[in-house]
């Protein structure tokens, strides 16, 4: 049987080019070009590595405006088999809840899926909500912040990076896996595949196709309301260099200033 893999991808402004307007302190997105969210490239690569060993079909799904086409073509040119862009006026201004709902609805329209990959988070909003949200909407298991992802006989095994070590999780499919940024080296697009990708093109789905009502999605379906955006100036913290011999004094000082305390 052919494994069905879905990869969730988002197009984001190139973070290397994002400029902060010195007056308003907001992000100026007008000058930046759009690229594929880097962690999503790692997610796609994780899928492709499974496909290298096991017969599989890879479908990329994205919710976004029409210009996300370049991202979809790029994913096909790296080796995905099918690209679906969910695009609809009604989807504008979505927060993470309706984004998850929309992507989950699109995935549920596919005939079948075994593994869903998402990036750990997006580089422009960085909530890390959407992947787990999709798993919840679909009612399936999830493994988050993963690297070294393998598939064998109906099970996905992945390593989770924790603060004090690594956790190895083994989980039966269907499962959603969120992939760590830089956890692998995304393969390059090739001319051959990109020509085929341009010829094949992407599919565009609207919310009717997903059987979603306009009031469930986009800004109308978003429970959060942005009242104000504010840049926070990082407080300049006091720093101090000490030699090895001075450490006991430093500890004493921190203790007296109540920055650290004793625990038993």
């Amino acid at each position: 049987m052919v494994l069905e893999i879905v990869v969730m991808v988002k197009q984001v402004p190139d973070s290397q080019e994002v400029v902060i307007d010195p007056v308003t302190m907001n992000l100026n997105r007008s000058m930046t070009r759009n690229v594929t969210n880097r962690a999503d490239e790692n997610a796609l690569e994780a899928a492709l590595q499974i496909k290298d060993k096991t017969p599989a079909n890879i479908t990329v799904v994205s919710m976004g405006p029409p210009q996300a086409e370049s991202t979809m073509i790029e994913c096909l040119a790296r080796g995905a088999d099918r690209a679906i862009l969910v695009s609809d006026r009604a989807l504008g201004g979505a927060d993470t809840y309706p984004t998850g709902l929309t992507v989950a609805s699109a995935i549920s329209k596919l005939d079948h899926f075994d593994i869903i990959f998402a990036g750990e988070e997006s580089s422009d909003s960085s909530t890390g909500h959407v992947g787990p949200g999709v798993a919840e909407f679909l009612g399936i298991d999830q493994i988050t912040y993963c690297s070294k992802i393998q598939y064998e006989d109906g099970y996905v095994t992945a390593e989770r990076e924790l603060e004090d070590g690594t956790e190895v999780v083994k989980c039966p499919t269907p499962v959603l896996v969120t992939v760590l940024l830089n956890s692998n080296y995304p393969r390059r697009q090739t001319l051959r595949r990109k020509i085929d990708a341009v010829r094949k093109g992407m599919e565009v789905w609207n919310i009717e196709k997903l059987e979603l009502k306009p009031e469930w999605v986009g800004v109308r379906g978003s429970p959060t309301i942005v009242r104000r955006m504010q840049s926070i100036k990082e407080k300049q913290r006091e720093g101090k260099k000490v030699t090895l011999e001075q450490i006991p004094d430093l500890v004493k000082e921190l203790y007296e200033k109540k920055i650290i305390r004793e625990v038993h």
Partner: protein
Amino acid sequence: MSEFDAIVVGAGPAGTSAASKMASSGMNVLLVERGDPPGSKNVSGGILWGKDLSKLYPDWEKTAPLERFITNKVTGFLTEDSSISIDFKTKRFERQRTGYSVLRTKLDGWLAKKAKDSGATVITGITVDGLARDGNKVIGVRQENDVITSDLVVLAEGANPRIAIDEGLRQPINDHDVAIGIKQVFKFSEQTINERFNLRNGAGFAGEYSLGFLNNGVKAGGFLYTNKDTISLGVVIDIFDLRKDNSTYSFDIMEKFASHPYIAPYIEGGQLQEYSAHLVCEGGIDYVPKLYGNGYLIAGDSAGFSFSNGMMIQGMNYAIASGIAAGETAISAKESNDYSESMLSSYEKKLSSSEVLMDMRNFRGIQNVTWSPLVHEFIPKFTEGILYNMFNETGEPKKHLFEIALENFAGSKYDRKSLVLDLYRMMRRM
């Protein structure tokens, strides 16, 4: 059978023009560009001179992303603390519009879009590795482990033609064949630029300067062009002398130009938006390779089609003209289903009767003049000395102009004979 009628490598002005010309005649064309989006790797000053685009897009002056039409052309010499310039303004340029300032990031995107609209398959973000050959015939391109086949390959790689060189289709680059260009773009409001340069209704300023303040024989020119709400400021540096001098760095020359007392006020308060560097093709007609062979043509900077006087550069116009000529040649080749060397030789004939090769031939060796110490050192310093003495009121008895000139000449490193010789060469070649 080949997968494509033609593959074009590079979506600069040359490649997009060739692709558009061929595709609009119904040919099956693939245009491959490594930059994503197109233009992201390209640098021009840049003023697009001439009307070559009219041949492809009659309404280009209304639809292309043009910044300003040039009505005010300044040519000058800068020394350490002085500026001497000829300031030419004419209402005629307002009517004729012979030059427009452009920004490549926008222009190349538009050109690629036009090629796509003409029917070409445009692929970005991919670098072509080389050519595929069958004997002495080019049959397509190589990329990673694949070969994409075509009856014709048009190489329009720009000033650093790796493929043409690696495949032995042209001579490698010499220090004398290229200069290095550095460019900065500063953001202002449209109104600020209008006020600073005394411009109205979309008119623009194009200033080019010889930088007479450099040491150790290093030679460079500078340019300042107004765009709608940005200023392009850059330098073009002769590599040969730069390489010999270990104490001068290219970016320092850029800085010195930008902070020159008579340049700095123009860009004061501007926000730096772009900083780029690129090779400039300078080799003249002797740097032009064989332009065609079985299954391939070379166009634009890759073919050395660029004209420079050490301050201003023309290349985009020749790139477009040669791209169109390559396209026309390909169309005839397709009609007779013959992509042989002898068929494709009509490309060179077309260029020979157009401004592209005529300009290059007429100005053979101009780079020896434009990059001479005469232009970049002697004239700026000599003229500055004369003007200073002439206009300066010291209370001392006045001297005749000839006397002042002689004194200044004595202070320069030139001997009389080589001056006369260099001046003669300059007059003949310019």
